[in-house]
């Protein structure tokens, strides 16, 4: 009984320490923000790193997402809803939800993990200490560029994913569901609101913050050699995936009020 209580207590403390550490890092990022204009190269490098390397993966994921979305929706609509509503249904789902969330979940595995592994390795091989010893703030030099690049690039990738997924859906609609491309695209266009696109990309920016911040934080708190780096990397993916889903729900309840 006592050990159970102690374990719960320790878990609570660990949790608070983790959250506290995240906030401290967040605050230090904000303090370092002005320096981004002093050395924009660091951020641009990270943007290229995230963008270029993730492009093929996002392409693949969004083609399939769009195709499956069209197929499944058509299957559920058969005999109940006219097929001219296929475009609007799929378009909305992709723009608001599927593209941002799937992009983010995939990139949590791709970008978040690589940030955590890279910074974790730098931590255990004392490279972060070496930066400190050289009076170079590691938060400014390593974390800030990654977080800013994440906040900028993930919406861009998600926007790209939105377009590709809708094209994928179009192909399935025309070739499998047998509706004309005009009918599908008219549906997409008729109920297209720019605000949906903005909402989707705002979510994606939030997810970008989550992915890069958690990746950096996990990297920084890594200890225990190669095994520690492995653990941190896994942790970064799991924690950011969970936070993405929670954030998605919270944002949905805030942005899309019914009634």
């Amino acid at each position, binding site marked *: 009984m006592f050990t159970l209580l102690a374990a719960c207590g320790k878990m609570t403390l660990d949790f608070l320490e983790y959250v506290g550490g995240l906030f401290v890092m967040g605050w230090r990022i904000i303090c370092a923000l002005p320096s981004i204009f002093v050395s924009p190269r660091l951020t641009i490098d990270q943007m290229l790193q995230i963008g270029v390397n993730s492009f093929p993966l996002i392409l693949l994921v969004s083609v399939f997402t769009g195709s499956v979305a069209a197929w499944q929706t058509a299957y559920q609509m058969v005999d109940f809803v006219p097929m001219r509503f296929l475009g609007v249904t799929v378009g909305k789902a992709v723009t608001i939800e599927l593209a941002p969330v799937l992009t983010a979940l995939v990139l949590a595995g791709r970008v978040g993990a690589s940030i955590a592994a890279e910074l974790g390795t730098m931590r255990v091989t004392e490279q972060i200490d*070496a930066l400190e*010893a050289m009076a170079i703030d590691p938060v400014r030099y390593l974390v800030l560029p990654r977080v800013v690049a994440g906040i900028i690039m993930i919406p861009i990738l998600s926007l790209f994913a939105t377009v590709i997924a809708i094209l994928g859906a179009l192909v399935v609609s025309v070739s499998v569901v047998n509706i004309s491309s005009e009918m599908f695209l008219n549906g997409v266009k008729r109920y297209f609101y720019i605000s949906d696109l903005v909402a989707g990309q705002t979510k994606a920016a939030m997810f970008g913050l989550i992915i890069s911040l958690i990746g950096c934080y996990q990297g920084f708190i890594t200890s225990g050699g190669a095994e520690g780096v492995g653990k941190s990397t896994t942790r970064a993916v799991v924690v950011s995936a969970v936070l993405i889903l929670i954030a998605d729900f919270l944002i949905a309840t805030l942005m899309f009020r019914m009634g």
Partner: protein
Amino acid sequence: MNDKSNNEIVIEVRGLEKSFDNHRVLNGVEMDVRRGETLVIIGRSGCGKSVLLKHIIGLLSADRGTVSVEGRTLSKLTRKELYEVRLRFGMLFQNGALFDSLSVGENVGLALREHTRKKMAEINEIVARKLEQVGMGGMENKMPADLSGGMKKRVSLARAISLDPDFILFDEPTTGLDPITADAIDDLIVELGGHPSVTSIAVTHDMASAYKIADRIMMLHDGRVLVSGTPDQIRSSTDPIIHQFINGLATGPLKAI
């Protein structure tokens, strides 16, 4: 090696205690370092020499006790003030700690790029000169992963002295080098330390190198300073622990394994 025992004290360690997971590593270290001197720290593997160096540059914070540099207590400084102090330091890490995403040249030039307004050409020139000093001339474009252990150590040394620091911390500068290169690095350390305003602290296991570079040798034992004296005093010490250590004997008061 002229007498520096009257110079002002620039690094002052008082009652330093540090534990890791209930294991007390430093247990009341007292030490003074005077301007211009070269202090060599010796002691058994795992006795806390690297930990002590990291306290001196503020990478680790003490559980108890203080470290002051030129009268400023590190634990009381803001991050910005601490960085000002660190700018005057150069540190060679025991395992090099080179940035493995940067080339050799970028490693050595990083502090110059971040902290000075020098032009790229001038930085490249300084980098070339520093690499030359450690016998790594012309290796700017190599990546750290492609270097041998001893080469990494020397690049790391070049990086540590890139800003011409007033305080240099060397954590085992010659470990892993062949005897000839090691001797050349010792010469470089003597040369760097020969400057009257440069204060250096070196950790080493190599007694020949210690006698060569040291103005003063300090032995760390059981979390405290066991002895501190000139190389001659240490060499002629009759203390059984010191005698066993500096002569590398397996038998004596210290248990070998």
